[in-house]
């Protein structure tokens, strides 16, 4: 499946079906992130129910602490 992630076209395994599965794939599941899917900000509680489909446009922003 092909996804647009942060402006890049990315190929991910078809076994990924949800946003939380995608975050796990990128090892971001334990991180604090904001996710936008097709220009909709996702509530943290809905990440495991929200489906990802071929061609979806996702923006993933991770909160970091350094400075």
């Amino acid at each position, binding site marked *: 499946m092909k996804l647009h992630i942060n402006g*890049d076209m990315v190929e991910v395994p078809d076994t990924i079906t949800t946003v939380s599965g995608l975050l796990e794939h990128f090892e971001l599941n334990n*991180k*604090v992130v904001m996710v*936008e899917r097709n220009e909709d*900000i996702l509530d943290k509680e809905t990440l495991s129910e929200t489906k990802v489909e071929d061609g979806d446009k996702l923006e993933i922003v991770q909160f*970091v*602490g*350094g*400075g």
Partner: protein
Amino acid sequence: MDRYSRQTLFAPIGKEGQQKLREKHVLMIGAGALGTGNAEALVRAGVGKLTIADRDYVEWSNLQRQQLYSEEDAENRIPKAIAAKTRLSLINSQVEIEAHVLDITPQEMEQLVNNVDLIIDATDNFDTRLMINDIAQKHNIPWIYGACVSSYGISYTIVPGDTPCLNCLLETVPLGGATCDTAGIISPAVQMVVAYQTVEALKILVEDWSSLRRKLVSFDLWVNQQTAIDISKAKKEDCLSCGKNPTYPFLSYENQTKTAILCGRDTVQIRPSVSQTRNLDQLEKMLSGQNGTVEKNPYLLSFTTGEQRLVIFKDGRVLVHGTKDITEAKTLYHRYLG
């Protein structure tokens, strides 16, 4: 005087904006990479007053990216707030600069925000950021979040009563994320965040509110990615920091950390639960009798023993270098300081 001529020629600022800038007071929490970058830009731009608070002192590993510091500062372990003030005063003597060598607690935060128009986040941890977030909401002061690690950076401008706040966005205090310690940091990532923060600061200070970015911006300079997303819908009505019935949870004593691992350093900071001033002369005498080396300047005392080094500040805090383990740090602390 044409010192600011190129800035006043820029129409959105103009002479009127320059005058507004001159009347404004900015509070900068942290004087590391982001702090030195932001401070230099705002001081050159001609802000009226800048208050800088930082708990650390200059070390060699800072010089790669913390633009106000010199080898001499690292050699003499000058507290960052002091070294920054010295350098900034040479850059623009018209700006009033106030330096505080301290680890911010809610009590001190209450004093520091007096007559402040804007707070710039230049800290390296979420404990302090959530404290900034609460004090900003309580006193209705805008603040600008900024952070970076490796080649990645992020920034967001928080305006009380308008945008979501940091507590809305995080929901919890992030733990175990990458730090400058584990992942390193390159200066372009710092400079990019500084640019995002400084430009938003200028807009706020000249009161051009309609030009604010309003998006959460993040980038990774090494892999050539950049994203900006509209998160206005993330504002929560029941948020304890900015919602209908705020309690400002991060200003309460229970939520304060007494030990902290410093970003980018093999170091643990320990802060006594009761505020106290240390007598450095007395400590020098006491520690000279121990198996180690003692060095002292007017602000702090450094005691090296084996692989570890204790740096004891006048305001009571102790930095334990040579460990990331809080328990081990506390053991050393208690061994030498009771």
